[in-house]
């Protein structure tokens, strides 16, 4: 009988990879890639930066602090034109930190924004001898920084902020309090007053931009407080604000090397301690 002889069917290997299978495989691969990249990115972003930003108005003494911490001697300085980023080794624990000294001139002080993602801490340097005259300007600068700190994405830890009352040696100490304490108190009072003014002004003001009801996000916030609403550093929502009092003397070679520890080495020891304590 001429039965139909079954011709052997040859399965080509390509038939195993049907279009459906290819699509599924591609999808799985893509998903794996996305997961890996997200994971990496997350790990990166949760990692805290290693930089400490020195910010503050012109002539506050940022570069002098940097030179004292990095070069162990206070070099004479003038108004900075560009950012300095130098490495300092902490005497204890041999940690290394990157100090970033951002110029305080109003035209270029915005540069701190680009270092903020890598920042571990921000030290806002204030000249305690001129704060009563420059209160408003200093507060404006600090406001910018507070705003930038609070508007950082929540996925990463907020850098800790401390206010450095610099040039304490120009204050006279009294029987009740040391010069550092006096400087800190004065700066805290003046800055709280000025920032409260700014907060009040923004709270019940209509911004120019919101007149037209388009892009109304121009308001500079960052001054929200828990409690009564009046601005207090202790109640600031963005986190804790520390205060330290420091001073340097230009020209003197402060020999504070890694091995020998001066208990009263120079006026910067409070700042050093704060740097040590950074997580």
């Amino acid at each position, binding site marked *: 009988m001429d039965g139909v002889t079954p011709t052997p069917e040859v399965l080509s290997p390509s038939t195993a990879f049907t279009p459906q299978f290819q699509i599924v495989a591609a999808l799985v691969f893509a998903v794996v890639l996305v997961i890996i990249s997200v994971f990496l990115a997350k790990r990166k972003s949760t990692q805290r930066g*290693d930089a400490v930003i020195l910010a503050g108005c*012109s*002539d506050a003494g940022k*570069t002098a602090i940097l*030179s004292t911490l*990095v*070069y*162990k*001697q206070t*070099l*004479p*300085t*003038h*108004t*900075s*034109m*560009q*950012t*300095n*980023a*130098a*490495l300092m*080794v902490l005497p204890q624990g041999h940690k*290394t*930190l*990157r100090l970033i*000294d951002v*110029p305080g*001139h*109003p*035209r*270029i002080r*915005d540069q701190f924004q680009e270092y903020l993602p890598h920042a571990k801490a921000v030290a806002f340097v204030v000249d305690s001898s001129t704060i009563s005259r420059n209160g*408003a*300007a200093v507060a*404006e600068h600090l406001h910018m920084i507070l705003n930038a700190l609070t508007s950082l994405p929540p996925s990463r830890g907020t850098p800790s902020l401390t206010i450095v009352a610099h040039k304490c040696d120009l204050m006279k100490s009294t029987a009740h309090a040391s010069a550092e304490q006096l400087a800190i108190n004065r700066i805290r009072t003046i800055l709280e007053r000025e920032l409260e*003014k*700014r907060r*009040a*002004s*923004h709270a*019940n*003001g*209509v*911004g*120019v*931009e919101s*007149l*037209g*009801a388009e892009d109304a996000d*121009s308001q500079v916030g960052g001054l929200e407080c828990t409690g009564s609403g009046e601005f207090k550093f202790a109640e600031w929502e963005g986190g804790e604000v520390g205060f330290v009092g420091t001073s340097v003397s*230009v020209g003197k*070679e402060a020999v504070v*090397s*890694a091995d020998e520890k001066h208990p009263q080495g120079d006026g910067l020891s409070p700042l050093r301690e704060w740097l040590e304590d950074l997580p």
Partner: protein
Amino acid sequence: MLDHCSISHKGGVVLWSRSFTPAASHTAASSTSPVNSLVREALIEGRSSDGKYEKDGYAVKWTFVNDLELIFVVAYQRILQLTYVDELLLALKTLFIKLFQPFLATFVASLHVTSSAKLASSAAPSASWNFRKAFEGWDGVFDKLLRGLEDKAAQERRTRVAHPARATIDVTPPAEDTSTIPSHSNADVQDEEQIARNVQALKNRLRGRGGHAGRRGRGRTDVGSGRDSLPGSDSETPTSKRKSRAKAQRKWGESAPTENDMALLDYSYDSSVSEDPASSLDLSTLVDNGSLGTRTRDGLYEVKDWEFASQGDKNTDDVIAEVLKKGGQEAKPAASSLGALGSIFSRLTGSKVLTEEDLKPVLEAMKQHLMKKNVAKEIADKVCEDVGESLVGKKVGGFQSTTSAVRQALANSITRILTPKTSTDLLLSIRTKLSTPVAASQQKLPYSITFVGVNGVGKSTNLSKVCFWLIQNGFRVLIAACDTFRSGAVEQLRVHVRNLGMLGVDGATNSKGRVELYERGYGKDAAGIAKEAIAYARDNDFDVVLIDTAGRMQDNEPLMRALAKLVATNNPDKIIFVGEALVGNEAVDQLTKFDRALRDFSAASGGQERGIDGMLVTKWDTVDDKVGAALSMTYVTGQPIIFVGCGQTYTDLRQLRVANVVQAILSD
């Protein structure tokens, strides 16, 4: 003769500085020092005009080394005409880099750490920094260099003095300076070479006077004969101008002694001067001449200190001489200062150093681009020049082209110019003034804002927009109609006030009583009306007074004077210049003249100097991305743009976003 000289890093660290007068050394550390002012006002704000900056009676000159990020600054009294400052800066730059290149390179690298991990290893060797030791030899080198240049300048002056009769007038004061200034200078005044120098300077001065007196006694015919002999000597030695002059003097002197004995004195002096340059190369001998007596002492002194100094001392004379020679002949040793090392390095890393030739076509293109965006030509020139100055000698990475480097630098520069340096927060400023306690005897003054500008730019329209915004913020506003000239100006404001009064605020159906117009008709004195308006506002408890002035052309002197009077008598809290975004090259002229007129007249009338406090740019919606006027205006005055007017309704007022403007200017 110099007051202050400093070498510093752009980041603010001063590597070396010296003040020559007590006054200068006193201010050097304070924030008002000439160097600080220079950086703050000229360099950061990008408003340096032709390489010279003047402040508080000082003239300041500077130069950059971009690859090492150094600034060299020399400050001196403005009244002195120091011809050698440029040469000094150039020589300083070349010498300093030549001597300290390795140290400077590590120093600059230490200020540019990108991540702590990378430098953790390299941080260890450079752990101990000793700046004093590193620059130890420099004091001596600087002294010699300065002395060489001063001597040279003094000689040039002397030779100049000796020949046309007119030049004798200015000989004595500078000669006196050479002798008096060293006695002012600090610290090392008392060392012996200084004394030797003083003695020499004194002698020179006496001689100079002798010569001066001698020539006065001489007949006119001699002067003529001296002049005649000049061309002949020029043709003999065409290589050096100074040398030929010296020779000319000698010939002139030779002809003189036949006349009288005073001229004989003159001859002996002149020949002694011209003897040295005749024997060998002029400049190197000059330097040797200055340090001849002190050389052995120098050597002894510096051997004690440190090896570098002694080793450097042998070379310094040669190096200085070399540099001086170079500086005298052509003005471009800066480019070659890096030498072979730099080129090898750049070849290895694939980065290249930008030169002026590289930058020129790119900058030219950028300038054209800026001008296409309606930036005034003058401003485009200056901005590009500054950008070029800041880039020459910089290294660009392997992946970055020259164009993108220039673009980046230009973006930075424009951002810097546009970023306000004073607060633009008008609300805060008003609230602060209103809440400041005043003495019980006087009443609280309202916050007054004056709008000035040329005709037809939209002063009244934008004044009403600002008024609307203030009303929305709960202030009571009085508008003073001080345009008493153009027909319909007062009526126009009356319409605005009526409209604004009918618009609701915060749920209230109308804001009557929140805004009023103060008008006194036409043809009256605007300053008087403004004064009355402020008094009226004070008595009736208004918060803000907006003063509308008549438009005027900046060249119209009487009208500008009237405006200045208005400003001087009322002293408003803010003077806002209203300019239109359509303006091109004219922007520069308008703003400079308004600003200057206000300043001049307010200073003349006894009050404190007042200029423009801010700007309002109108018709912003008509220019699309050709927003160059904003750049021109901020560049000229250095003041911020407070508002931008962008339409016909009361809500069409905006604040300037610097980032957007920069993007618009740079977009193709």
